[in-house]
Protein backbone atom coordinates (compact mmCIF):
# COMPACT_ATOMS: atom_id res chain seq x y z
CA UNK A 1 0.00 0.00 0.00
CA UNK A 2 1.39 3.40 -0.93
CA UNK A 3 1.54 6.30 1.46
CA UNK A 4 0.81 9.90 0.57
CA UNK A 5 3.19 12.40 2.15
CA UNK A 6 1.19 15.27 3.62
CA UNK A 7 2.92 18.64 3.73
CA UNK A 8 2.24 20.57 6.91
CA UNK A 9 1.78 24.10 5.62
CA UNK A 10 0.93 25.39 9.11
CA UNK A 11 4.28 24.31 10.53
CA UNK A 12 6.46 27.30 11.37
CA UNK A 13 10.20 27.17 11.88
CA UNK A 14 11.39 26.06 15.33
CA UNK A 15 14.84 27.28 16.32
CA UNK A 16 17.33 28.00 19.06
CA UNK A 17 20.07 30.61 19.37
CA UNK A 18 22.81 31.61 21.74
CA UNK A 19 25.39 34.40 21.80
CA UNK A 20 28.67 32.67 21.03
CA UNK A 21 30.68 35.77 21.93
CA UNK A 22 29.43 35.97 25.49
CA UNK A 23 31.17 34.15 28.34
CA UNK A 24 28.60 33.34 30.99
CA UNK A 25 30.97 31.67 33.44
CA UNK A 26 31.91 34.82 35.35
CA UNK A 27 28.34 36.14 35.42
CA UNK A 28 26.82 37.34 38.68
CA UNK A 29 23.22 36.63 37.72
CA UNK A 30 21.86 34.05 35.30
CA UNK A 31 18.09 33.95 34.99
CA UNK A 32 15.55 32.32 32.71
CA UNK A 33 11.97 32.68 31.61
CA UNK A 34 9.95 29.81 30.20
CA UNK A 35 6.74 30.67 28.36
CA UNK A 36 4.57 27.60 27.81
CA UNK A 37 1.83 28.88 25.52
CA UNK A 38 -1.10 27.10 23.94
CA UNK A 39 0.67 26.73 20.59
CA UNK A 40 4.35 27.55 21.14
CA UNK A 41 6.85 27.40 24.00
CA UNK A 42 9.93 29.55 24.46
CA UNK A 43 12.81 29.55 26.92
CA UNK A 44 15.00 32.63 27.31
CA UNK A 45 18.25 32.76 29.29
CA UNK A 46 19.68 36.11 30.37
CA UNK A 47 23.19 36.67 31.66
CA UNK A 48 23.58 39.75 33.86
CA UNK A 49 20.41 41.22 32.35
CA UNK A 50 21.42 40.67 28.73
CA UNK A 51 19.89 38.19 26.32
CA UNK A 52 22.16 35.17 26.06
CA UNK A 53 20.15 32.27 24.60
CA UNK A 54 16.64 31.27 23.59
CA UNK A 55 14.60 28.58 21.95
CA UNK A 56 11.23 28.65 20.24
CA UNK A 57 9.31 25.44 19.61
CA UNK A 58 5.84 24.00 19.33
CA UNK A 59 4.06 23.11 22.60
CA UNK A 60 3.29 19.42 22.94
CA UNK A 61 0.43 17.77 24.76
CA UNK A 62 2.40 17.67 28.01
CA UNK A 63 3.20 21.12 29.48
CA UNK A 64 6.03 20.05 31.87
CA UNK A 65 7.65 18.13 29.01
CA UNK A 66 7.34 21.15 26.68
CA UNK A 67 8.94 23.37 29.31
CA UNK A 68 11.82 20.92 29.79
CA UNK A 69 12.37 20.55 26.02
CA UNK A 70 12.34 24.32 25.44
CA UNK A 71 14.83 24.88 28.26
CA UNK A 72 17.12 22.03 27.18
CA UNK A 73 17.12 23.36 23.64
CA UNK A 74 18.01 26.87 24.79
CA UNK A 75 20.86 25.39 26.84
CA UNK A 76 22.14 23.30 23.91
CA UNK A 77 25.82 23.93 23.04
CA UNK A 78 26.17 26.63 25.69
CA UNK A 79 28.00 24.51 28.28
CA UNK A 80 25.45 25.76 30.80
CA UNK A 81 23.14 23.47 32.77
CA UNK A 82 19.89 24.17 34.59
CA UNK A 83 21.84 24.18 37.86
CA UNK A 84 23.82 27.22 36.68
CA UNK A 85 20.63 29.29 36.44
CA UNK A 86 19.88 31.23 39.62
CA UNK A 87 16.16 31.81 39.15
CA UNK A 88 13.53 30.63 36.66
CA UNK A 89 10.11 32.19 36.08
CA UNK A 90 7.36 30.20 34.35
CA UNK A 91 4.73 32.04 32.35
CA UNK A 92 2.02 31.41 29.74
CA UNK A 93 -0.94 29.03 29.92
CA UNK A 94 1.28 26.29 31.26
CA UNK A 95 3.11 28.47 33.80
CA UNK A 96 2.08 26.38 36.78
CA UNK A 97 3.39 23.28 35.03
CA UNK A 98 7.02 24.35 34.66
CA UNK A 99 8.63 21.85 37.05
CA UNK A 100 11.90 23.73 37.54
CA UNK A 101 10.40 27.25 37.89
CA UNK A 102 10.95 29.16 41.13
CA UNK A 103 7.84 31.22 40.49
CA UNK A 104 4.91 31.55 38.07
CA UNK A 105 3.95 34.99 36.73
CA UNK A 106 1.09 35.79 34.34
CA UNK A 107 1.94 36.18 30.67
CA UNK A 108 0.25 39.60 30.68
CA UNK A 109 2.81 40.99 33.13
CA UNK A 110 5.64 39.18 31.33
CA UNK A 111 4.69 40.45 27.86
CA UNK A 112 4.55 44.01 29.17
CA UNK A 113 7.98 43.64 30.79
CA UNK A 114 9.46 41.85 27.76
CA UNK A 115 7.91 44.41 25.39
CA UNK A 116 9.46 47.21 27.43
CA UNK A 117 12.91 45.58 27.01
CA UNK A 118 12.44 44.84 23.32
CA UNK A 119 10.90 48.12 22.19
CA UNK A 120 12.11 50.56 24.83
CA UNK A 121 10.46 52.58 27.60
CA UNK A 122 8.33 54.69 25.23
CA UNK A 123 6.00 51.78 24.48
CA UNK A 124 2.58 52.23 26.11
CA UNK A 125 0.38 49.73 24.26
CA UNK A 126 1.40 46.17 23.50
CA UNK A 127 -0.67 43.82 21.43
CA UNK A 128 0.23 40.19 22.05
CA UNK A 129 -1.12 38.14 19.17
CA UNK A 130 -0.71 34.67 20.55
CA UNK A 131 -1.51 31.15 19.46
CA UNK A 132 -5.02 30.97 20.85
CA UNK A 133 -5.77 34.39 22.26
CA UNK A 134 -5.07 38.05 21.80
CA UNK A 135 -4.20 40.49 24.56
CA UNK A 136 -4.20 44.27 24.42
CA UNK A 137 -1.97 45.53 27.23
CA UNK A 138 -1.40 49.10 28.41
CA UNK A 139 1.78 49.68 30.40
CA UNK A 140 3.87 52.43 31.93
CA UNK A 141 7.48 53.43 31.23
CA UNK A 142 8.78 50.59 33.44
CA UNK A 143 6.79 47.94 31.61
CA UNK A 144 4.28 47.59 34.44
CA UNK A 145 0.74 46.70 33.35
CA UNK A 146 -1.80 49.48 33.88
CA UNK A 147 -4.74 47.84 32.08
CA UNK A 148 -5.42 44.95 29.73
CA UNK A 149 -8.11 43.22 27.72
CA UNK A 150 -8.10 39.83 26.12
CA UNK A 151 -10.19 37.75 23.77
CA UNK A 152 -10.17 34.08 24.56
CA UNK A 153 -13.46 32.88 23.18
CA UNK A 154 -12.38 31.86 19.70
CA UNK A 155 -9.29 31.07 17.63
CA UNK A 156 -10.32 33.66 14.99
CA UNK A 157 -7.80 36.48 15.16
CA UNK A 158 -5.06 34.27 16.61
CA UNK A 159 -2.08 32.27 15.40
CA UNK A 160 -3.99 29.00 15.36
CA UNK A 161 -6.60 30.55 13.05
CA UNK A 162 -3.82 31.54 10.66
CA UNK A 163 -2.41 28.00 10.77
CA UNK A 164 -5.83 26.62 9.79
CA UNK A 165 -5.93 28.97 6.78
CA UNK A 166 -2.37 28.15 5.71
CA UNK A 167 -3.31 24.47 5.65
CA UNK A 168 -6.63 25.06 3.89
CA UNK A 169 -4.96 27.01 1.09
CA UNK A 170 -1.75 24.92 0.98
CA UNK A 171 0.38 28.04 1.51
CA UNK A 172 3.36 27.96 3.86
CA UNK A 173 2.46 29.97 6.97
CA UNK A 174 5.60 32.04 6.53
CA UNK A 175 4.43 33.19 3.06
CA UNK A 176 0.84 34.04 4.05
CA UNK A 177 1.48 37.71 4.91
CA UNK A 178 3.39 38.70 1.78
CA UNK A 179 1.01 36.76 -0.50
CA UNK A 180 -2.01 38.46 1.04
CA UNK A 181 -0.55 41.87 0.17
CA UNK A 182 -0.09 40.88 -3.48
CA UNK A 183 -3.67 41.74 -4.51
CA UNK A 184 -4.81 44.51 -6.85
CA UNK A 185 -7.87 45.40 -4.84
CA UNK A 186 -8.55 44.79 -1.14
CA UNK A 187 -11.44 42.28 -0.80
CA UNK A 188 -14.15 42.41 1.86
CA UNK A 189 -13.02 40.61 5.03
CA UNK A 190 -14.36 37.11 5.71
CA UNK A 191 -16.22 36.31 8.95
CA UNK A 192 -14.12 37.31 11.92
CA UNK A 193 -16.23 35.86 14.70
CA UNK A 194 -15.29 32.20 14.28
CA UNK A 195 -12.41 30.42 12.56
CA UNK A 196 -14.68 27.51 11.56
CA UNK A 197 -17.16 29.89 9.87
CA UNK A 198 -14.26 31.77 8.26
CA UNK A 199 -12.88 28.49 6.91
CA UNK A 200 -16.19 27.44 5.37
CA UNK A 201 -16.62 30.94 3.90
CA UNK A 202 -13.14 30.74 2.41
CA UNK A 203 -13.94 27.35 0.85
CA UNK A 204 -17.02 28.87 -0.81
CA UNK A 205 -14.97 31.81 -2.12
CA UNK A 206 -12.40 29.44 -3.62
CA UNK A 207 -15.24 27.57 -5.36
CA UNK A 208 -16.48 30.90 -6.72
CA UNK A 209 -13.08 31.34 -8.35
CA UNK A 210 -11.27 33.63 -5.90
CA UNK A 211 -7.50 33.29 -6.00
CA UNK A 212 -5.61 32.06 -2.93
CA UNK A 213 -4.05 35.51 -2.56
CA UNK A 214 -7.45 37.17 -2.50
CA UNK A 215 -8.80 34.73 0.11
CA UNK A 216 -5.70 35.26 2.26
CA UNK A 217 -6.14 39.03 1.93
CA UNK A 218 -9.77 38.66 3.09
CA UNK A 219 -8.68 36.60 6.13
CA UNK A 220 -5.76 38.87 7.10
CA UNK A 221 -8.13 41.82 6.81
CA UNK A 222 -10.70 40.06 9.03
CA UNK A 223 -8.03 39.29 11.60
CA UNK A 224 -6.80 42.90 11.64
CA UNK A 225 -10.36 44.18 11.95
CA UNK A 226 -11.11 41.89 14.87
CA UNK A 227 -8.00 42.97 16.74
CA UNK A 228 -8.72 46.66 16.12
CA UNK A 229 -12.09 46.27 17.86
CA UNK A 230 -10.23 44.86 20.89
CA UNK A 231 -7.71 47.71 20.81
CA UNK A 232 -10.46 50.32 20.50
CA UNK A 233 -11.87 49.15 23.82
CA UNK A 234 -8.55 49.70 25.59
CA UNK A 235 -7.79 53.02 23.81
CA UNK A 236 -4.43 52.70 22.04
CA UNK A 237 -1.76 55.07 23.27
CA UNK A 238 1.51 55.55 21.37
CA UNK A 239 4.10 54.02 21.17
CA UNK A 240 2.47 50.86 19.98
CA UNK A 241 4.17 47.46 19.61
CA UNK A 242 3.10 43.95 18.64
CA UNK A 243 4.43 40.71 20.11
CA UNK A 244 3.68 37.05 19.37
CA UNK A 245 3.83 34.98 16.19
CA UNK A 246 1.35 37.04 14.17
CA UNK A 247 3.68 40.04 14.51
CA UNK A 248 5.70 38.27 11.79
CA UNK A 249 2.74 38.31 9.38
CA UNK A 250 3.15 41.42 7.22
CA UNK A 251 -0.37 41.05 5.79
CA UNK A 252 -2.06 41.37 9.18
CA UNK A 253 0.31 44.03 10.53
CA UNK A 254 0.03 46.31 7.48
CA UNK A 255 -3.78 46.16 7.57
CA UNK A 256 -3.82 46.66 11.34
CA UNK A 257 -1.60 49.74 11.07
CA UNK A 258 -3.72 51.14 8.23
CA UNK A 259 -6.92 50.71 10.25
CA UNK A 260 -5.41 52.15 13.45
CA UNK A 261 -3.50 54.85 11.55
CA UNK A 262 -0.55 54.11 13.86
CA UNK A 263 2.79 52.53 12.89
CA UNK A 264 3.96 49.78 15.22
CA UNK A 265 7.51 49.78 16.56
CA UNK A 266 10.02 47.30 15.19
CA UNK A 267 12.65 45.43 17.20
CA UNK A 268 15.83 43.47 16.57
CA UNK A 269 14.46 40.76 18.87
CA UNK A 270 12.22 37.85 17.91
CA UNK A 271 8.61 38.89 18.68
CA UNK A 272 7.74 35.37 19.87
CA UNK A 273 10.13 35.49 22.83
CA UNK A 274 8.58 38.55 24.52
CA UNK A 275 6.80 36.55 27.25
CA UNK A 276 9.79 34.38 28.15
CA UNK A 277 12.07 37.43 28.00
CA UNK A 278 9.77 39.24 30.43
CA UNK A 279 9.89 36.16 32.67
CA UNK A 280 13.70 36.22 32.67
CA UNK A 281 13.65 39.94 33.55
CA UNK A 282 11.23 39.30 36.41
CA UNK A 283 13.53 36.47 37.54
CA UNK A 284 16.46 38.89 37.64
CA UNK A 285 14.56 41.36 39.83
CA UNK A 286 13.39 38.56 42.13
CA UNK A 287 16.82 37.00 42.60
CA UNK A 288 18.33 40.41 43.33
CA UNK A 289 15.56 41.08 45.85
CA UNK A 290 16.26 37.74 47.55
CA UNK A 291 19.98 38.52 47.71
CA UNK A 292 19.28 41.91 49.27
CA UNK A 293 17.09 40.26 51.90
CA UNK A 294 19.81 37.70 52.63
CA UNK A 295 22.58 40.29 52.88
Amino acid at each position, binding site marked *: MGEVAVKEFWRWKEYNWHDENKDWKGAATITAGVDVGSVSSQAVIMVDGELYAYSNMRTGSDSPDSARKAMNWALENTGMTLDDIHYVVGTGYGRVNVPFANRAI*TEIACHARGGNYMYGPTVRTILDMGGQDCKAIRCDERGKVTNFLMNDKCAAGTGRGMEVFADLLSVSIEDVGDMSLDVEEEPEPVSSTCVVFAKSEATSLLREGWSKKKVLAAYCSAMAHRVVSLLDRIDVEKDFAITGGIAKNSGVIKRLEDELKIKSLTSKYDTQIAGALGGALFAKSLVEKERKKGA
Partner: protein
Amino acid sequence: MKANYGYLDGSGEYFITIDTDLCIECDHHGCVDACPEKLFEIMIDDYDDEVSSIKEDHRKKIKYDCASCKPAGERPPLPCVEACTPGAITHSW
Protein backbone atom coordinates in the same frame (compact mmCIF):
# COMPACT_ATOMS: atom_id res chain seq x y z
CA MET B 1 -3.45 48.01 37.36
CA LYS B 2 -7.18 47.58 37.52
CA ALA B 3 -7.80 43.95 38.43
CA ASN B 4 -11.33 42.81 37.61
CA TYR B 5 -12.75 39.86 39.53
CA GLY B 6 -16.10 38.47 38.46
CA TYR B 7 -17.97 37.55 35.30
CA LEU B 8 -20.62 38.67 32.87
CA ASP B 9 -23.72 36.74 31.94
CA GLY B 10 -26.99 37.43 30.16
CA SER B 11 -28.25 39.50 33.06
CA GLY B 12 -25.30 41.90 33.32
CA GLU B 13 -21.68 42.47 34.33
CA TYR B 14 -20.66 41.52 37.84
CA PHE B 15 -17.15 42.67 38.61
CA ILE B 16 -15.38 43.89 41.69
CA THR B 17 -12.49 46.05 40.47
CA ILE B 18 -9.44 46.60 42.62
CA ASP B 19 -7.02 49.31 41.53
CA THR B 20 -3.80 47.65 42.67
CA ASP B 21 -1.76 50.86 42.31
CA LEU B 22 -3.95 52.37 45.05
CA CYS B 23 -4.27 49.13 47.02
CA ILE B 24 -0.51 48.73 47.55
CA GLU B 25 -0.45 52.03 49.42
CA CYS B 26 -2.80 50.64 52.07
CA ASP B 27 -1.16 49.20 55.18
CA HIS B 28 -4.21 47.65 56.84
CA HIS B 29 -6.37 46.18 54.01
CA GLY B 30 -9.59 46.84 55.93
CA CYS B 31 -11.67 45.24 53.19
CA VAL B 32 -10.60 41.76 54.33
CA ASP B 33 -12.31 42.07 57.73
CA ALA B 34 -15.11 44.39 56.58
CA CYS B 35 -16.66 41.99 54.09
CA PRO B 36 -19.36 39.92 55.90
CA GLU B 37 -19.00 37.15 53.31
CA LYS B 38 -15.18 37.06 53.66
CA LEU B 39 -14.65 37.41 49.91
CA PHE B 40 -11.34 39.27 50.18
CA GLU B 41 -7.87 37.92 50.80
CA ILE B 42 -4.36 39.29 50.58
CA MET B 43 -2.18 38.01 47.76
CA ILE B 44 1.27 38.76 46.40
CA ASP B 45 0.82 40.05 42.85
CA ASP B 46 3.16 39.69 39.86
CA TYR B 47 5.16 42.68 41.07
CA ASP B 48 5.72 41.21 44.52
CA ASP B 49 3.34 43.70 46.15
CA GLU B 50 0.74 42.80 48.78
CA VAL B 51 -2.70 43.53 47.37
CA SER B 52 -6.29 42.55 48.13
CA SER B 53 -8.03 40.15 45.78
CA ILE B 54 -11.24 38.13 45.63
CA LYS B 55 -10.90 34.51 46.69
CA GLU B 56 -10.81 32.17 43.70
CA ASP B 57 -13.88 30.12 44.70
CA HIS B 58 -16.06 33.26 44.96
CA ARG B 59 -15.19 34.86 41.63
CA LYS B 60 -17.92 33.11 39.63
CA LYS B 61 -20.70 33.86 42.11
CA ILE B 62 -20.11 37.36 43.45
CA LYS B 63 -23.56 38.45 42.28
CA TYR B 64 -24.99 36.11 44.94
CA ASP B 65 -22.26 36.53 47.56
CA CYS B 66 -22.63 40.32 47.51
CA ALA B 67 -26.45 40.22 47.54
CA SER B 68 -26.77 40.71 51.31
CA CYS B 69 -24.95 44.07 51.07
CA LYS B 70 -27.06 45.17 48.10
CA PRO B 71 -30.73 45.25 49.10
CA ALA B 72 -33.28 46.11 46.41
CA GLY B 73 -34.41 49.27 48.22
CA GLU B 74 -32.22 52.01 49.62
CA ARG B 75 -28.67 50.73 49.47
CA PRO B 76 -26.33 51.48 52.38
CA PRO B 77 -22.63 52.10 51.66
CA LEU B 78 -20.88 48.84 50.80
CA PRO B 79 -18.69 47.72 53.75
CA CYS B 80 -15.73 46.82 51.50
CA VAL B 81 -15.83 50.16 49.68
CA GLU B 82 -16.23 52.07 52.95
CA ALA B 83 -13.32 50.21 54.57
CA CYS B 84 -11.05 50.80 51.57
CA THR B 85 -9.35 54.06 52.57
CA PRO B 86 -7.32 54.50 49.36
CA GLY B 87 -10.55 54.17 47.31
CA ALA B 88 -9.27 51.20 45.33
CA ILE B 89 -12.48 49.12 45.28
CA THR B 90 -15.42 49.63 42.91
CA HIS B 91 -18.36 47.41 41.97
CA SER B 92 -19.74 47.27 38.43
CA TRP B 93 -23.36 46.62 39.46
